């Protein structure tokens, strides 16, 4: 018990004193996950919009595929990407394995189906009159899409926050295609795994606190956003 208290004390000390190694890991995590979510959101929303408003065969099948992808374990995505990026793999020449780019690609693969599925649910629930109003008032197709997305912005923001929460807390992809290299690809989750395996709990607990605070902030913000959405509808 005393040892646990001491470790927690050390963890808090690391956080409060701004330990450079710890905070560089936190910054790297945010940098990778923010890049992934920013790159994923626009195409995922376009796909979600097309699935709601499109008139092409196979929409149900595509939706089923995206929904199935929601439950794919991150290590499977990591393994798939590893095979693709390894020197003998089809994209080996790009030399992306054990890089931040590989982590970003992996996180994109993880959150794309999440954003499509949640985006689809949100846009599908949008009032049909929005699209018709935009069209009848002469909006070009791209502005019609923007208008619909804007009208359901709170729901979409909730989807993006959910996706961000998922990718910043994943460990499988980052470990397999990032390689957990200190100062280069070590992020919060891989650092926690490593430090714990070494029996060094202080940094792991400190990073765990960061993730818990992030989860609390995201949940609070999500609740606020969902409240806004309820009000707007």
């Amino acid at each position, binding site marked *: 018990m005393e040892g646990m208290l001491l470790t927690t004390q050390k963890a808090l000390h690391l956080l409060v004193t701004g330990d450079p190694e710890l905070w560089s890991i936190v910054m790297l995590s945010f940098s990778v996950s923010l890049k992934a979510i920013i790159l994923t959101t626009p195409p995922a929303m376009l796909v979600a919009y097309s699935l709601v408003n499109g008139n092409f065969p196979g929409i149900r099948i595509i939706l089923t595929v995206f929904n199935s992808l929601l439950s794919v374990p991150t290590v499977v995505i990591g393994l798939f990407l590893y095979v693709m990026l390894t020197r003998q793999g089809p994209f080996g020449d790009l030399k992306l394995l054990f890089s931040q780019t590989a982590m970003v690609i992996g996180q994109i693969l993880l959150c794309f189906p999440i954003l499509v599925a949640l985006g689809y649910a949100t846009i599908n629930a949008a*009032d049909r*009159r*929005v699209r*018709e*109003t*935009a*069209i*009848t*008032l*002469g*909006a*070009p197709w791209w*502005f019609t899409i923007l*208008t619909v997305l*804007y*009208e359901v912005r709170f729901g979409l923001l909730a989807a993006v926050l959910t996706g961000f929460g998922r990718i910043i807390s994943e460990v499988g992809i980052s470990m397999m295609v990032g390689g957990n290299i200190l100062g280069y690809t070590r992020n919060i989750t891989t650092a926690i795994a490593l430090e714990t395996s070494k029996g060094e709990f202080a940094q792991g607990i400190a990073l765990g606190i960061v993730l818990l605070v992030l989860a609390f902030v995201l949940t609070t913000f999500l609740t606020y956003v969902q409240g806004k959405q309820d009000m*707007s509808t």
Partner: protein
Amino acid sequence: MSEPLLVFRGIEKTFAETNILRNVDISLYPGKCILLSGNNGSGKTTLLKIIAGLETPSRAEIELSGKSHSWKSTIRSIRREIIYLHQQPYLLSGTVESNVSYGLRFTHLNRKQLRESVKEALEWAGLADVAKHQAKTLSGGVQQRVAFTRAWILKPKVLLLDEPMANMDIESREQACDLLKRMKSEGMSIVITSHDTNIIDGLIDIHFSLSDGKLD
């Protein structure tokens, strides 16, 4: 009667093996108002949406300058001249002013002209006082006037109104009727659907009834 502005011929709409519209012909005249009556589910809204290009017919032709064209090949080019208003119009997030100016963004007006047009339209509809109000917070009657103004500002040749007076109190109904009469006097062709034929005095020129997917 003057030359028709647009003629839609042979409109047919089948959905799940049910004929919603059967070989419907309808001509729209400038400065004339058509009342389309019929029971709920008689196909009034579907007909308006097909004319507006918001719903695809199973078959339809459009006659322009005496020549007949398929609905599919023509509707895109004439859609800008036709505005459809829902029974309960959808006002977008933002102020009354931003709603009224929405369609003008897609015209060639510069910012100054756009502002002046919006100001003129708001005064025309008696909405200047609520210009900065959030549109969605207004009463149903005022929201309907905002929707009329948002359509009027674009000067469409055809205005399609789906049950515009439903759920309106007498005062709002009179105000809406007054705006519609002014639009008609400016040469706009108006089509109104209603299952209550007595509501719009002095506005209707032609009355059609839709039953079993046919126009009488």
